[in-house]
């Protein structure tokens, strides 16, 4: 097991190198010049050249990448060209917002998806099953921004129960903070439960055909135990994979939802950095997101081993 974990951690390095190199290359393909952006279009060519030299923008791209990497390895992620804010501070400001949103959204999505999937699998082919799978399919074709607007209309405008926009730090007012996350998290959960339900439903239907389920029935176990212990655990590998991918994606922020609900998350930080040609912020934030993504996948791999002992004993 320790060897397995160690090997997975080693995979992290090439992935991070590749991701940061690619971001560097793509960012350098963006049109426009940071020095001109900062100085304005009235600046003299001499002033622009001087600023470029000062920021190291006149160096070849590979040199700039290696210099950046060197600093990162020494714990210095740099600071914004424009605001002077360090990357660490910028990410530390935004990351908790994205993480809180992600956790609330995923938990809600799973709470909707798992019971419905079990219900559909047990009654597969019934009217209930057909209605719920149909509903899930219909939901898949409804975009999140649409859902967000409908939720705002219903809960914020008509019923006036929840705030439509804005964000209050948790330390300031925990209740208000949680309230401000309800609608955005619900929007994301509504976008995700159909996929989660459909994968769990089909895996569960396959599991319920297995001999060991017939055996569990023949042993006279209670139906709840058969479904939740004997059937759910071996059916949940795809569910864990898809949830992991969703979590990884949400660590990088949920841009549309952040914009609609005015949440200061990672998504808006990244897009803002791209518009402002703020490469250092972009690089640093992407590095964090990539680490987060790889870590989530690492946890998913660990969960496979927890859920299925054959994986634990087979490969490690």
């Amino acid at each position, binding site marked *: 097991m320790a060897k397995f974990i160690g090997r997975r951690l080693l995979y992290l390095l090439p992935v991070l190198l590749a991701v940061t190199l690619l971001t560097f290359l793509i960012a350098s393909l963006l049109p426009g010049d940071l020095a001109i952006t900062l100085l304005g279009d009235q600046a003299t060519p001499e002033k622009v050249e001087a600023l470029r030299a000062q920021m190291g923008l006149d160096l070849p791209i590979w040199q700039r990448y290696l210099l950046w990497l060197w600093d990162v390895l020494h714990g210095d992620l740099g600071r914004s060209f424009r605001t002077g804010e360090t990357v660490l501070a910028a990410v530390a400001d935004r990351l908790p917002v994205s993480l809180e949103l992600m956790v609330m959204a995923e938990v809600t999505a799973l709470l909707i998806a798992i019971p419905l999937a079990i219900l559909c699998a047990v009654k597969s082919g019934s009217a209930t099953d057909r209605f719920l799978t149909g509903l899930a399919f219909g939901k898949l074709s409804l975009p999140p921004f649409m859902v967000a607007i409908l939720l705002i209309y219903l809960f914020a405008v008509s019923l006036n129960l929840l705030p439509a926009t804005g964000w209050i730090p948790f330390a300031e007012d925990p209740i208000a903070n949680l309230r401000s996350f309800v609608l955005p998290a619900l929007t994301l959960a509504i976008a995700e439960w159909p996929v989660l339900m459909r994968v769990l439903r089909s895996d569960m239907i396959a599991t319920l055909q297995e001999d060991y389920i017939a055996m569990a029935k023949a042993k*006279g176990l209670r139906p709840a135990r058969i479904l939740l212990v004997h059937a759910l655990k*071996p059916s949940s590998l795809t569910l864990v994979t898809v949830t992991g991918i969703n979590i990884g994606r949400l660590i990088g922020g949920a841009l549309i939802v952040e914009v609609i609900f005015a949440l200061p998350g990672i998504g808006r930080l990244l897009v803002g950095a791209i518009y402002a040609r703020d490469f250092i912020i972009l690089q640093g934030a992407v590095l964090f997101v990539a680490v987060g993504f790889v870590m989530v996948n690492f946890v998913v791999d660990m969960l496979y081993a927890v859920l299925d002992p054959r994986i634990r004993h087979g490969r490690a």
Partner: protein
Amino acid sequence: MDTALLSVEAVSVVLPTPRGPLKAVDAVDLSLAPGRTLGVVGESGCGKTMLSRAILQLLPKRAKLDGRVMFNGRDLAALQPEALRRLRGPELAVVFQDPMTSLNPVLTIGTQLVETMQAHLGLDSAAAAKRGAELLAEVGIPAPEQRLRQYPHQLSGGMRQRVAIAIALSCEPKLLIADEPTTALDVTVQAQILDLLAREQRRRHMAMIIITHDLGVVAGRTDEVAVMYAGRVVERAPTPQLFAHMRMPYTEALLAAIPKLDAPPHTTLPAIAGRPPDPTRPLPGCSFAPRCRYADDRCQGAKPPLADPERAGALYACWHPL
């Protein structure tokens, strides 16, 4: 003769298929007294597994069951799910064919053994674990305490079948159904598993149904044998009587298809020519007629009833008994 523990009365099972309804089990009658052993023999697709699932009420959802399965005076087919659940384990138990698929791969042996006892016997977990280790020792598993913590994939096929037997025995059932319990196992462990089942059956005075395609398996280990073909019981007799004088040509052909130890090398095995009839297209006459070397016009035209015309205690369904 004791009163029957199990009596299967005119049980039919019909499965819907794209080619039309398939009559997997056709009006089967069986009965079994407490502590007795019945062998159900037939080739693949003859309905013997569907019959066992019909007795256990574990048929696929789409299957339609007719007739009555009387167990201790109660019709299992008419029981409420909760009443049936309480019978499974302490009254009725089963050992499935393939121990590679009948044990849950993600739960430990201990969990799977202990949960049955906790569900029915009201044992606390420490007592159930202790009893679990004793049961594993009884079915011939060395180092039972360690085995309780292991998963099915860490055990060999024979060991897994022993675990499945320990689970089936854990609540002291009155009837054990063993559905081809050795088919998926190596030949070398088949006899060990059968001997284990026979020993525990005698020791616990439990009734047992052994379902198999191998007449050799039932020969020394059962009190009575029912031979099935195309969903029907075609011959039923006390085991010694059946082997001394089989009446049905199908039973004879089945016995001839077993390799003999004393036959010279390279002897051709007399396989039964042809294939069983299409179960979605029932024949008007005897189902075995197309493959039977004694068949004539009467066999093609009319179905022989399962009867005992000589009052010898042996039933058979044949117009031209041997």
